[in-house]
């Protein structure tokens, strides 16, 4: 564990280029914000402008990333001292070390591609400038989150991405469900943010700083119970942002937004902010084993729950949304096993294949005239070959079939969980978690293959004639398909080595070394087999025996019950409604009638009435004539003089 021992006084290079990275999208957002009312025939420019700013940001990032040094080195840029209060001195500072560099690269790179994709996807929408303004603003906030030198700058980015998420989910705000979904995302995130803020307070209260480098050096001084508290509170924030149990309910609803938004915010970048934050504070979390165990359990449970729900969904975006929740669960499993670099590894590969999947799904949706129900797809591989290829590649990656990107990252996570002592309430649970993770991998392979089969194979079941998407949409998908397949194979080991400072030492060896371990080898084989089994089963059921499911459902009541449960997402939304929302409404109603109406309004209105009655009397003194005012003024002056003389 490198992060434990290091004092982190590593070299810091001031670099002005750093500020350009978030500045480009910010300028873009400002310009587009001004251009919201631009003429109809010029709106096509908005998308290209936004894309240009994103690409500029990406280019600068690449330039900086190539010059990044040792694990302890970082580029740093302090814009100005933001505020100072007591011993709290916060600088508006950016800092890019290896971890932040990787994240920045993913955010700007995938972000640029999704911007390009959005040009095609949104080309009929009349409020494109607003859309791209939000999109650029999101990019800015996300970069601020990633590059923030201290917790508060990160928090600003954290809230910024939340805001943009809200704005973009409810982008088509004229339809009530969309606006509701946006509000739901925002409110649920607030709960997490409250935890996050409390965590920041705990850290500052005890350590006197919020700056990451300083925190990293100081967390060792925290007593264990405080470290656990801070870690858990911060994790609450991560739970909200990264859609873990119990706060995952907003993410599936967030699919109400335009598909590029789902790809960018709700798959590739924002939802991984929690993972990034935990990794960033890895030094704190390794001191809090209980918190880590909680993270692992929550992650695993989320992965399983979401995967089961994904089995029965018919909306292609819902499937992908639950898949995202499930994959995020995997990432937290990795974090729970203290294998932070593996978590980030999965973040990156997941960004590739999930963004690819979402964009391919968007392409399908556009191609089928905004039909999202997979039951009305089928056989699209002929009419949409490019999209099909990309979807196939990304599915291959996510299912964990050999040598896809998911294969490497997911396997590594499973091995990390298996090989790490995770203790909760005195019982080691790592084997259990591993088992659940493996089962989830099977489910993942199953439902992803299911969606692939239902969409691209068989007979076309829709009504409108499907068509392939324009090049602005297919290009980003195909570009992303390549790393989805090959990233793990080509760069996997270099990647983990690059982030060695955030990884576990026992995992920081090459694959060849790991493979000498018989257990590892065995587990690898098992998970490979599981993935193949899942794919094969799904391909069999949905490709060859399409009526099997229906007959099963008809045959057994148990199957029907499970299916209904899955279809209704285990009734979790309803549960929350009954447990939290409904009581809250009742209490609010009482408070409203008693406290608000009677007490507060009564007081306020009473005061006003009292004043009005007084004014009715006093107003007669206001003749409206300057002379009488002057007379009173003068009389007062004389009185004052006499008073002064007499005294």
């Amino acid at each position, binding site marked *: 564990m490198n992060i434990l021992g290091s004092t982190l006084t590593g070299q810091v290079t001031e670099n002005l280029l750093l500020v350009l990275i978030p500045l480009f999208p910010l300028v873009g957002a400002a310009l587009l914000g001004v251009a919201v009312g631009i003429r109809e025939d010029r709106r096509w420019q908005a998308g290209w402008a936004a894309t240009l700013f994103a690409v500029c940001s990406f280019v600068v990032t690449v330039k900086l990333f190539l010059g990044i040094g040792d694990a302890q080195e970082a580029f740093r840029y302090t814009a100005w001292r933001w505020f100072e209060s007591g011993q709290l001195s916060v600088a508006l500072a950016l800092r890019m070390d290896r971890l932040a560099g990787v994240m920045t690269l993913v955010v700007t790179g995938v972000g640029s591609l999704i911007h390009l994709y959005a040009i095609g996807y949104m080309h009929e929408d009349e409020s494109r400038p607003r859309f791209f303004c939000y999109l650029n603003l999101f990019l800015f906030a996300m970069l601020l989150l990633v590059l923030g030198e201290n917790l508060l700058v990160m928090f600003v980015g954290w809230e910024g991405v939340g805001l943009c998420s809200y704005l973009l989910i409810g982008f088509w705000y004229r339809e009530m469900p969309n606006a509701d979904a946006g509000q739901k995302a925002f409110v649920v995130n607030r709960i997490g943010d409250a935890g996050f803020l409390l965590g920041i307070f705990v850290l500052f209260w005890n350590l006197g700083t919020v700056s990451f480098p300083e925190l990293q050096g100081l967390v060792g001084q925290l007593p264990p119970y405080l470290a656990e508290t801070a870690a858990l509170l911060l994790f609450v924030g991560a739970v909200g942002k990264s859609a873990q149990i119990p706060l995952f309910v907003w993410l599936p609803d967030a699919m109400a937004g335009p598909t590029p938004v789902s790809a960018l915010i709700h798959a590739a970048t924002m939802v991984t902010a929690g993972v990034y934050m935990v990794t960033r504070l890895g030094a704190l979390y390794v001191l809090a084993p209980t918190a880590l165990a909680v993270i692992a359990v929550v992650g695993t449970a989320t992965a399983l729950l979401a995967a089961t729900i994904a089995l029965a969904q018919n909306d292609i975006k819902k499937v992908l949304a639950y898949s995202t929740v499930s994959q995020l669960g995997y990432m937290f499993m990795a974090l729970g096993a203290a294998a932070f670099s593996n978590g980030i590894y999965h973040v990156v590969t997941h960004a590739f294949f999930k963004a690819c999947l979402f964009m391919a799904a968007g392409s399908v949706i556009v191609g089928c005239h905004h039909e999202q129900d997979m039951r009305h797809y089928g056989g699209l591989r002929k009419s949409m070959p490019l999209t099909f290829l990309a979807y196939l590649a990304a599915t291959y990656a996510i299912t964990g079939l050999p040598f896809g990107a998911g294969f490497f990252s997911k396997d590594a996570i499973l091995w990390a969980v298996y090989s790490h002592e995770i203790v909760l309430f005195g019982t080691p649970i790592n084997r259990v978690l591993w088992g659940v993770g493996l089962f989830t991998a099977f489910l993942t392979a199953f439902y992803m293959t299911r969606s692939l089969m239902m969409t691209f194979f068989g007979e076309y079941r829709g009504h409108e004639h499907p068509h392939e998407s324009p090049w602005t949409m297919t290009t980003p998908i195909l570009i992303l398909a390549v790393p989805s397949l090959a990233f793990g194979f080509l760069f996997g080991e270099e990647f983990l080595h690059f982030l060695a400072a955030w990884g576990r030492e026992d995992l920081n060896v090459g694959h060849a070394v790991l493979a000498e371990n018989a257990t590892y080898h065995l587990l690898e084989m098992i998970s490979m087999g599981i993935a193949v089994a899942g794919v094969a089963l799904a391909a069999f059921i949905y490709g060859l025996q399409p009526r099997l499911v229906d007959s099963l459902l008809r045959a057994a009541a148990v199957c029907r019950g499970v299916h209904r449960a899955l279809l209704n997402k285990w009734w979790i939304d309803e549960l929350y409604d009954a447990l939290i929302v409904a009581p809250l409404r009742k209490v609010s109603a009482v408070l409203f009638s008693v406290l608000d109406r009677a007490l507060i309004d009564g007081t306020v209105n009473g005061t006003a009435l009292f004043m009005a009655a007084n004014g009715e009397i*006093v107003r*007669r003194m*206001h003749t*409206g*004539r*300057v*002379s009488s005012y002057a*007379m009173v003024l003068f009389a007062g002056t004389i009185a004052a003089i006499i008073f002064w003389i007499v005294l």
Partner: protein
Amino acid sequence: MEVTQFYLVLGAVLFTLGTLGVLIRRNTIVIFMCIELMLNSVNLTMVALSRQFGEVSGQVFVFFVMAVAAAEAAVGLAIIMTAFRNYHSVRTTDVHDLAG
């Protein structure tokens, strides 16, 4: 009577006359002129005291009073013109929208 005292008394008389004008006249322009008269009585007092104490700052104050009076004249007359525009009168008795 000493010179300084004479001018203090003269200033007092002028100031009181100005005040009287402000109080009893109805025409805004006349009121405005009476205010100028009050300002000038103060100027007179300040110059007298400046002479009394051999201190030049009194005259500097007078300079400032004049500058402020010039600014006041510009804005005040503009206000009178605006009032005239709106009420077609500059009598204080005609301009009483603030009456309660």
